[in-house]
């Protein structure tokens, strides 16, 4: 008689551990499959939006309303956050720059950061929070109150009627919002550096001009267009696939923001690498220099 069969517990213990491990792997696999399915669904949803965009443009009134709601109403909050981010950058960087005697170069850091990174990401984050969640909640409510079914029953295509104007609104207005965030960040940072920290204004601005180029501004605006498209597609998708009830609408709104934000950060990373490569290809001497 073997020792294992003499004590059945010693035989069952590793089997239980293997089963638990298998369950965990299966759970992880299920989550991964769900993620891949969702990604595929969102891609198809995006393609359907693009095909409707090419087939039939929304009515002028619908589009203007969308541009106003998405762009104009977001301007104040984007301007305010841009200003404070610029000032915070000045506060945070001043001590380090002063230690090396580089305080007049503070403008270069603030303005470069605003143009390339903080402006577009900030505008996109505010848009995802203010507009993306609202889009998901609005479309989610329309889904659960059968308004989307009503649209379809009357011969309208919900993607063409509801998604395309919002997609265009985000796509066309996010460059302006990014510009506003950049401008207010530059103004806020400059104001704090010159008037509060007492940095010489001539050197502050001349250093800024020397280091920040049109390419940096283009860099930020180019990225923002992708962020705008992501916010619109993800938020509309979440609204269209809203679960029933108030809880479902709440979840759709939260998921729209979280998913948009995660995708924005991933896109930001990938686009930054791509744009740096493009810059190196176009102007190889500048990269070396």
């Amino acid at each position: 008689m073997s020792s294992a069969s003499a004590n059945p517990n010693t035989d069952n213990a590793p089997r239980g551990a293997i089963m638990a491990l298998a369950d965990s792997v299966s759970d992880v696999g299920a989550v991964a499959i769900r993620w891949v399915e969702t990604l595929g669904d969102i891609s198809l949803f995006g393609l359907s939006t693009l095909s409707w965009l090419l087939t039939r443009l929304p009515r002028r009134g619908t589009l203007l309303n969308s541009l106003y709601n998405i762009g104009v109403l977001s301007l104040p909050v984007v301007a305010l956050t841009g200003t404070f981010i610029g000032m915070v950058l000045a506060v945070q960087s001043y001590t380090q720059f002063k230690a090396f005697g580089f305080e007049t170069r503070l403008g270069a850091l603030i303005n470069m950061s605003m143009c390339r990174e903080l402006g577009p990401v900030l505008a996109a984050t505010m848009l995802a929070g203010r507009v993306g969640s609202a889009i998901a909640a609005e479309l989610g409510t329309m889904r659960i109150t059968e308004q989307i079914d009503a649209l379809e029953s009357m011969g309208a295509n919900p993607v063409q009627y509801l998604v395309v104007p919002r997609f265009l609104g985000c796509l066309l207005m996010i460059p302006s919002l990014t510009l506003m965030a950049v401008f207010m960040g530059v103004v806020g940072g400059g104001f704090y550096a010159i008037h509060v920290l007492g940095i010489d204004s001539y050197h502050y601005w001349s250093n800024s001009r020397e280091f920040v180029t049109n390419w940096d501004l283009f860099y930020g605006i180019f990225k923002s267009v992708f962020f705008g498209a992501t916010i619109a597609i993800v938020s509309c998708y979440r609204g269209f696939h809203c679960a029933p009830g108030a809880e479902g609408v709440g979840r759709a709104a939260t998921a729209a923001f979280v998913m948009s934000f995660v995708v924005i950060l991933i896109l930001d990373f990938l686009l930054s690498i791509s744009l740096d490569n493009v810059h190196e290809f176009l102007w190889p001497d500048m990269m070396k220099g």
Partner: protein
Amino acid sequence: MVAADSKSNQPLIELSELSVQFGPQSVLRAIDLTVPRGQTLSVIGESGCGKTVLLKTIIGLVRPTEGYVEFDGKRLDELNDKALTAQRTRFGYVFQNAALFDSMTVAENVAFPLEQNRNMRFSQARDVVVNYLAEVGLPDSVMNQKPAQLSGGMRKRVGLARALAMDPEVILYDEPTTGLDPIMSDVINELIIRTREKHRVTSILVTHDMKNAFKTSDRIVMLYPLARLGRDESQIIFDGTPAEIEKSKDKRVSQFVRGEAGERLMEMREQANR
């Protein structure tokens, strides 16, 4: 002449072996049903037995898992998106809670199908909207109100006006009297009858309000929840006239018609305990 006769004899809507399943849950199973032109059919049954799903499958909002819907001789499952959309515009759908677009005014809601399908501008559609609202007994003064400002009965009537603006051949009513007081329920019943007479439409009502079914219908069909049916039992447990349903010997039918719980509470408790 012969062709016209054969078309009028042909059922306008035909469901053949229609089954609908959402994930693991089966809602409709092998439904066979024909609706002749001009008939008013009520589909009755307990909550959750698949009445609304049946209505949405008829208009193509829900795709059947098996079987098909044939409308005016064309199978909906064989149509492409464009052709299906064209078929849908021959229907008017009055949703359970009206499903009015809450970002639009009443007038914009009723004008929507006119703008969408007849390429009318809102200014052109305005007079037509006034007529449809008058037909359902609503004054001009509601035109600029938002749906949230209306009572339940008014919302249902705006929903009916919007369905009429489709100039439909078939009107589908999803629980048209649910949540209304008895007088408003009767107003809706009268409107359903008047709409049928004036516009000569085929109507399908989904309801569990027996007064509504008796007053408006030529024919009543009762659906039974699949969960309480045997494998080979038909989901349609009654198909006949309002007079016939009153005399039905089937206990499940007579209990429903009279609104008696019978042993249902006991059954529900047993199910819950299981």
